[in-house]
């Protein structure tokens, strides 16, 4: 048969097919390319942000052969791509009374002493800086620890006094170290920890209190050698252990030289290509390690840069998979859309095809012509989609076309094109098959093709599976439960992103397979819209189940996708903000160091009651002053007292005991949530304090240090008697008293988050009433008084703070924080913002596709409906009535989809937030329940989409009524 004859048919038949499939494929490819680029861009931005927080790219720990540390530095600096090397020396010693420190001749009780030096003073905290740059062998003395410890030295120390470390020996004192003190300063232990983490990237043990002597690099070089020798002597004599274990008694020396290395990031790192960057960085780090080991075989090399890159490569793979998963619903919609459009093409070309068949054109030639047009349209569409997909990055992200080629590999583009072509081919088959199947008589007949005589969609096993899998996840979301089996967890995690579309697909299919249910649902929705034509509309919809199903599916996918990212973001933000609120405890928090309070510094007694008697007056007076300030609603103190003893947490020499003066007032002044209580609501737990109970922290419970209902050995009295108190409950956080503040989270790099999490989890504290007789004779040292201030609504915290500061003068708070400024610093969580960034795009693409799909379905429906409407018009139907019918016909399936989709979207948003919090990142916020936040914008989105559909429906119906009744019947 004339194989080439079909070419002649193309101009007659092919135009619509070409255009339609051009549109479908370009849309598909555009969505795929753009989402891909934007995801990569987001990862790039995120990685760069992470890297900015890293001070050093590689860190070499040298704890042996310290005398040769200069050699290590020299070798490392010669390595290619190494930009800079700095040296940090930390010579730590644990002291016993036998080898105590003498300052100005007096013996000090400092349990820890450390000599610190750096080749670049900028590496050290500002408190460590020398007063004069001239090196005269003198040192800056830095103290840290509780005020009761530091306060002692503040009295004794004078500039110029001698500090010496000696070992008492029977055969005469052995001097280990001695220096002149040139400057004295004080640093918070927390700051010290932060500094070490910031520079070195890993946590190091920092004792609760100690002294640091900061010396010049030259002095360090000398001391390294001398101390080595001195401690060797000690070791042989008195059993000193190397790098002594924490918590054990006896002297110990643990020196360390740390080389901080900067690599040439500009050469090694590119945010667009993380994998190659990782390879380059790993090679460089390997070289550094090799060189370091040539001098000191035991040298440890750590690279946060490499770790971060490794993590980001993993993340980007994860994000890629998630992106793929999220694009599935979009492709799905594209598929449904293209099928509708194929239907439209068939409907449009039916008469032409029919006529050609009547005149003797062969079915196969017609099919070839159509297939050719579809294929051509698909190919042209792919090219257009790729070009369009490049536009966004080039114009929005200022990526050059040359970079684009690097960013998106040709293979990927090929895959996209293949996907698009597959969509076009399979949906286009509908048209070509139809063209060959249709008989000339059918083609020329006036009645529409029998799309489906009866309601026929079946509920297949596949759809059942989709429903079950999707439903399973949604039930778990509601029940707030997740799988614990590790290999299932991956699948379970992925399901978080797929559950919504699966559930929607399964559920929609299930509903649609039940014609009675569909009829009832459609009737319910059609009645108010269509009025008297309800039955007409419902029967009309029932005639075309596939189209109705498509419309419901598209609409529900669209609504759920439009809703859940925003809901997730806002629910997440809500929980974080509440976590912050719990941490801060009140609108405004003032923390006073006890040593700064009148009489506080002279607290010589270690017995709680005696100290309380001294402090209470000042504190109450201060509270009254604060409460008198306008806009202050209430003010309530929390006393922090450190109880010595390392029983609670290994390595921690004391545990904080928080004392409340009035539990009811406390509850009224602080922000709290029931979930903060372990086992029972927070309020109930706090109220048990009134009857002499104590509360322990969740950290203590988790570490099996104590259990509710038992007695707690809290400490000892001055006469060494044990103080035992009943444990009446446990709480996760005492609002306002948290030592680990959420605000630190952003400032810390990733490893810090883990560190803080560790702290938060092991966070040990005890809470009791101030007037609890059981603790009256307990020994402990008051360190801080925290005053929690709640403000009247709409009061400006900063303004109130200024007034408070002026009324409490001359007292001065050691630190203040207020919720409104803290919450601003709590910028969007990077992890979530990354995910949302790409989600947003999918949402946009998804909505676009969905709108196109809905319009296509609408047009097909409308073309079908037109003649029916004309007949009704002739029979006396008013335009108003018919308008309502058109709107109903279009809107009813969408409404049904909207209901299903919005509900699923809201659940998904909630579930995803829960999922995000399973990645335990957010400290005390973790114990709070996720509260569903459905922001106003959500309803805005629903309203907007709904309005779009209304407008579309109006446009459709407008076409009908432009004509008179007679014309309508003819057309």
């Amino acid at each position, binding site marked *: 048969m004339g194989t080439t004859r079909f070419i002649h048919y193309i101009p007659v038949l092919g135009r619509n097919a070409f255009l339609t499939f051009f549109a479908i494929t370009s849309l598909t490819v555009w969505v795929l390319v753009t989402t891909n680029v934007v995801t990569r861009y987001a990862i790039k931005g995120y990685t760069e942000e992470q890297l900015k927080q890293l001070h050093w790219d590689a860190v070499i720990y040298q704890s042996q052969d310290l005398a040769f540390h200069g050699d290590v530095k020299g070798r490392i600096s010669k390595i290619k791509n190494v930009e800079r090397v700095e040296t940090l020396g930390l010579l730590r010693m644990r002291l016993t009374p036998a080898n105590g420190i003498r300052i100005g001749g007096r013996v000090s009780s400092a349990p820890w002493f450390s000599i610190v030096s750096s080749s670049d003073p900028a590496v050290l905290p500002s408190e460590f800086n020398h007063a004069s740059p001239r090196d005269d062998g003198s040192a800056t003395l830095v103290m840290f620890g509780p005020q009761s410890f530091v306060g002692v030295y503040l009295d004794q120390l004078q500039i110029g006094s001698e500090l010496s470390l000696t070992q008492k020996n029977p055969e005469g004192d052995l001097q280990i170290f001695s220096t002149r003190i040139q400057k004295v300063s004080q640093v918070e232990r927390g700051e010290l920890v932060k500094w070490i983490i910031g520079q070195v990237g890993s946590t190091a043990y920092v004792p609760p209190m100690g002294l640091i002597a900061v010396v010049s690099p030259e002095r360090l070089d000398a001391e390294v050698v001398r101390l080595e020798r001195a401690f060797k002597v000690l070791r042989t004599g008195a059993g000193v252990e190397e790098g002594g274990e924490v918590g054990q008694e006896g002297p110990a020396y643990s020196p360390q030289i740390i080389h901080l290395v900067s690599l040439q990031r500009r050469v090694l790192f590119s945010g667009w290509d993380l994998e190659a960057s990782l390879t380059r960085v790993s090679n460089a780090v390997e070289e550094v390690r090799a060189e370091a080991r040539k001098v000191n075989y035991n040298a440890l090399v750590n690279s946060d840069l490499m770790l971060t890159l490794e993590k980001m490569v993993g993340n980007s793979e994860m994000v890629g998979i998630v992106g793929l998963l999220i694009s599935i619903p979009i492709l799905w919609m594209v598929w449904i859309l293209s099928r509708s459009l194929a239907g439209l093409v068939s409907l449009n070309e039916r008469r032409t095809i029919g006529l050609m068949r009547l005149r003797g054109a062969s079915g196969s030639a017609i099919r070839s012509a159509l297939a050719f047009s579809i294929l051509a349209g698909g190919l042209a569409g792919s090219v257009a989609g790729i070009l369009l997909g490049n536009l966004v990055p080039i114009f929005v992200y200022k990526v050059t076309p040359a970079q684009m080629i690097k960013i998106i590999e040709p293979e990927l583009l090929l895959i996209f094109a293949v996907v698009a072509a597959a969509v076009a081919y399979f949906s286009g088959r509908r048209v070509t098959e139809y063209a060959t199947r249709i008989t000339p008589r059918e083609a020329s007949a006036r*009645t529409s093709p029998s799309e489906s005589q009866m309601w026929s969609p079946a509920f297949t096993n596949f759809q059942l599976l989709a429903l079950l899998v999707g439903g399973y996840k949604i039930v778990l979301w509601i029940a707030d439960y997740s799988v614990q089996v590790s290999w299932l967890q991956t699948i379970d995690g992925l399901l978080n992103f797929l559950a919504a579309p699966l559930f929607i697909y399964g559920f929609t299919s299930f509903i649609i397979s039940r014609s009675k249910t569909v009829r009832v649902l459609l009737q319910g929705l059609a009645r108010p819209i269509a009025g008297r034509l309800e039955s*007409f509309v419902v029967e*009309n919809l029932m005639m075309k189940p596939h189209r109705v199903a498509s419309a419901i599916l598209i609409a529900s996918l669209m609504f759920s996708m439009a809703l859940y990212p925003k809901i997730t973001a806002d629910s997440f933000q809500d929980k974080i903000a509440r976590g912050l609120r719990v941490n801060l405890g009140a609108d405004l928090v003032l923390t006073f160091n006890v040593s700064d309070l009148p009489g506080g510094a002279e607290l010589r007694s270690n017995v709680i009651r005696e100290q309380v008697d001294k402090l209470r007056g000042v504190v109450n007076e201060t509270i009254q002053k604060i409460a008198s300030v306008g806009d202050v609603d209430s003010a309530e103190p929390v006393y922090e007292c450190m109880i010595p003893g390392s029983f609670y947490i290994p390595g921690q020499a004391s545990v904080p005991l928080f004392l409340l003066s009035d539990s009811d007032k406390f509850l009224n002044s602080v922000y709290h949530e029931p979930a903060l209580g372990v086992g029972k609501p927070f309020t109930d737990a706090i109220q048990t304090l009134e009857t002499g109970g104590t509360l322990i922290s969740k950290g203590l419970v988790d570490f099996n240090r104590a259990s509710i209902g038992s007695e707690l050995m809290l400490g000892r009295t001055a006469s060494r008697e044990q103080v035992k108190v009943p444990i009446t409950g446990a709480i996760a956080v005492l609002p306002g008293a948290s030592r680990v503040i959420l605000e630190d989270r952003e400032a810390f790099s990733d490893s810090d988050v883990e560190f803080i999490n560790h702290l938060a989890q092991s966070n040990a504290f005890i809470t009791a009433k101030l007037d609890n007789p059981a603790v009256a004779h307990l020994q402990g040292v008051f360190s801080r008084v925290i005053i929690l201030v709640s403000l009247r609504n709409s009061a400006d915290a900063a303004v109130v703070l200024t007034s408070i500061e002026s009324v409490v003068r001359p007292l001065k708070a050691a630190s203040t924080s207020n919720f409104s400024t803290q919450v601003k610093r709590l910028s969007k969580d990077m992890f979530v913002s990354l995910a949302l960034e790409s989600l947003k795009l999918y949402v946009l693409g998804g909505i676009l596709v969905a709108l196109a799909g809905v319009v296509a379905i609408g047009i097909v429906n409308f073309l079908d409906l037109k003649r029916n409407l004309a007949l009704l018009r002739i029979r006396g139907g008013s335009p108003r009535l018919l308008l309502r019918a058109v709107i109903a016909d279009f809107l009813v399936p969408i409404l049904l989809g909207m209901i299903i989709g919005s509900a699923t979207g809201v659940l998904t948003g909630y579930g995803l937030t829960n999922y995000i919090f399973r990645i335990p990142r957010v400290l005390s916020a973790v114990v709070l329940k996720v509260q569903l936040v459905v922001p106003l914008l959500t309803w805005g989105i629903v309203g907007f989409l709904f309005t779009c559909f209304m407008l579309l429906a109006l446009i459709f119906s407008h076409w009908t009524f432009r004509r008179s009744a007679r014309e309508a019947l003819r057309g």
Partner: protein
Amino acid sequence: MIQRSSDSGLFKHQGLNIMTEALHKKYEIGVDSVTAVDGASIEIRPSMTAALVGVSGCGKSTLLNLLGGIDRPDKGSITVGGVDITRLSERDLEEYRLNKIGFVFQMFNLLPALTAVENVKLPMTMAGKLEKGERHCRALNLLQLVGVEKRAHKRPDELSGGEQQRVAIAVALANDPGIILADEPTANLDQANLRKILALLIGLASECKKTILIATHDPRVSSETEIVIKMAEGRISDVLKAENHIRKLVSLGE
């Protein structure tokens, strides 16, 4: 098989008098214009059956459309039951089409999505006159009247052409209109079906006093009506008693 329509008690409204004067209707297609109806004046009294005949393109359908309120004339008046419908508002015209006129076309009378009985009910629902139950009853009765009650729950594509046409008549009768306008209602029917439908329409005129106007090319139809209105080039060329019309046809050897 077809019961007498007067017995059913389904019809209470009498036929209406139709009178047109100097009707004109012109179609403009670009620069061309076709005068489809050119000064037609006719009168049809209640309980009268009239056949509208003439060569193809002479303006029969156009005239029916004008009478049925589907289209508006350019000039002239149409008085139906004493009311000039050319002056009715669009809204009143809808009301007129809904309640006063029953239209039967050659094809596409029924909505494909609805069953026969639902098709019959729809005009009643739109008019909103009867209770739901009453509407259903009436629809079934009408279907019985036209002899297709057994097919009440079938969709149009499951009915034969003749059955569809009879359902269409039931639809036209749904709101008890005074006037039935039929545009070639019998063109694709066999002898038996044609007889049935014709008998039904004539019965409606004689027993229920409806006014019936049928546009047709079929002499079997025009021979049964009371009068025959002949059209040529948009004008009424002749109005004859049926027997005279037959005589003429015979004498012309048609």
